[in-house]
């Protein structure tokens, strides 16, 4: 079953007096349960592709399908609902809400989803334990290390068991040990919950966990290979 289908995507940005082709007639399919790494040099278009798949950015042309829904024609509100229900995001800079504790950050998305308080509490505590943050539930982001914050961000992204997780340079601010722990966690979720992962990264170590490597250059796919994970 196809989790993500991109057909002939084009996206051009204007930078100064130059047009930058971030996506140049790009087509790619990702099957459900795949663990895909997008690789490219800076400006290669991987973040633009992630944003387009996540409905954060609308391509100039082409089609994007998430499962069996075409999203490039959806309204802002429909896209927000889609992200809330089906997509988990992990960002390079953690991007936690600074005034909420670790547990509240995780619960926040569930609250917006309308999950009951008791269920929210149980799920958030369980997921924080799962990412190794038991005992740190009441800490605010400023009281946690980068690795701990990124774990909270991951917990927030996966607590509702989304079908698709999009991660943009999730290990860029982490040391190698924490990076490895995070990738182990992603791998476990991918294998046990059949969650589809699409990760944009430069990191060779992260790439070693992927089952499929998609190489991009100037908004086009220049390589797409299956590999055995590390």
């Amino acid at each position, binding site marked *: 079953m196809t989790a993500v289908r991109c057909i002939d995507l084009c996206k051009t940005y204007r930078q100064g007096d130059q047009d930058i082709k971030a996506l140049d007639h790009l087509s790619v399919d990702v099957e459900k349960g795949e663990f895909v790494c997008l690789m490219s040099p800076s400006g290669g278009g991987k973040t633009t592709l992630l944003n387009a798949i996540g409905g954060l950015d609308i391509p100039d042309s082409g089609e994007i399908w998430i499962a069996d829904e075409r999203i490039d024609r959806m309204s802002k509100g429909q896209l927000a609902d889609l992200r809330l229900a089906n997509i988990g*995001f992990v960002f390079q800079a953690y*991007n936690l809400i600074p005034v909420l504790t670790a547990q509240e950050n995780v*619960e926040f998305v569930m*609250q*917006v989803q309308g999950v009951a308080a008791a269920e929210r509490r149980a799920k958030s505590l369980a997921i924080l334990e799962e990412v190794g943050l038991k005992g740190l539930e009441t800490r605010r982001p400023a009281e946690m290390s980068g690795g701990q914050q990124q774990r909270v961000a991951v917990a927030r992204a996966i607590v509702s068991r989304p079908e698709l997780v999009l991660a943009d340079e999730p290990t860029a601010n982490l040391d190698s040990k924490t990076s490895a722990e995070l990738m182990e966690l992603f791998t476990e979720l991918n294998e046990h919950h059949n969650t589809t992962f699409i990760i944009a990264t430069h990191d060779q170590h992260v790439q070693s966990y992927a089952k499929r490597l998609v190489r991009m250059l100037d908004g086009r796919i220049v390589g797409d290979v299956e590999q055995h994970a590390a």
Partner: protein
Amino acid sequence: MNIVLRLAWRNLWRHSRRTWLTIGAMVFSNTLLVFMISLQFGMYGLMINNTLQVFSGHMQIQAPGYKDDQKMRQVVHDVQPLAARLRSELGSDTIAARGWAFGLASSAERSYGIGIYGVEPAHEPQVSNIPGLIEQGRYLEGNDAAEIVIGATLARNLRIGVGDELTLLGSGPDGSFAAAVVDVVGIFDSGVKEIDRNIAEMPLGTFQDVFYMDGAGHQVVLLAPELDQAALLQSRVEGLLAGDDGLVVEGWDALQPGLKQAIQADISSAFFMYGILVILVAFSVLNTQLMSVLERTHEFGIVMALGLKPGRLGRLVMLETAMMGLIGMFLGALAGALFTTWFTVNGFSYPGMEEMVANFNLPGRVYPRVTLLTMFAGPLVVFVFTLAAAAYPALRLQRLHPVAAMRTN
């Protein structure tokens, strides 16, 4: 507590100094509003009561058209029995019958045109403060005595005093010539020049004899225990008079349109000033919330990426503003009430006030009235404008694009 509420509350205190400064502006303006509105209402109460207690009362029963064109022949027949019946049926003492005529008052040396009231000496003190303002001599005693009390200025102008005789000339309802000689038994000083120069009071019985009134008068004056009970009393009186065709009940605002207009004019000018105060506070809130939204653009981009719709973000900003506004409203109302309460006991005055308000027959100190209305009317308006001021920052979020927002630092 709901996480959105918690988030709003904590967002409020991210920059606690800024939040407190904004709340401080609200508290200051609310305190000022509570004090000024309470003072204003206290002043109006004083103006109304002082004016109405001179002659008008809270309402009067008259013949139709008498209010606008005071002709002698537009009479209330059997005016004293009517007043007695109302006193009995309403269980109230503050009801009195009167007659009114224009006449020429002459002393040995001078003559002046004056207004002559025929009053019930036993009941007039309950509806008017003139009997209590006798400066020399005494007030009227018998209903049929040939006596009169006059204003201090009139006495000075006529060059007469207590014990002197005064000749009255006028005409009755049928145009017949009326004349009498009465003894001046008292001189009153109301402090209102117009009254002290132009008014005299004599017993209603004597008045009816002199002016051939045949038991009639021109008005029954009623005073309610409090101004805010006047409307209820008026409807009761109208009910009791339902069978008496040809009589109308005129309320104080119809009897004293100038007073009502003066109050309305004062309210309008005061509201203009309050409006400026409220708008200044609203701009302070707008500044705070706009800064708060701008500096959180990146964060808003993140939560939009997580699936929050711009509308919910807007509601979050409104919720933060509402919390800030509620704190400002309650602290301001409380501070205003406490501050004003001191003046309700001790009165409020400023240099020169005594001389100024004396022209309006008012005492030199005003006692503000603190009620729920005066406590919350101003702060509620500030609260509403505070929310309105936050609408722009909240609506601005509708145009926010998550990717662009996340690029900002």
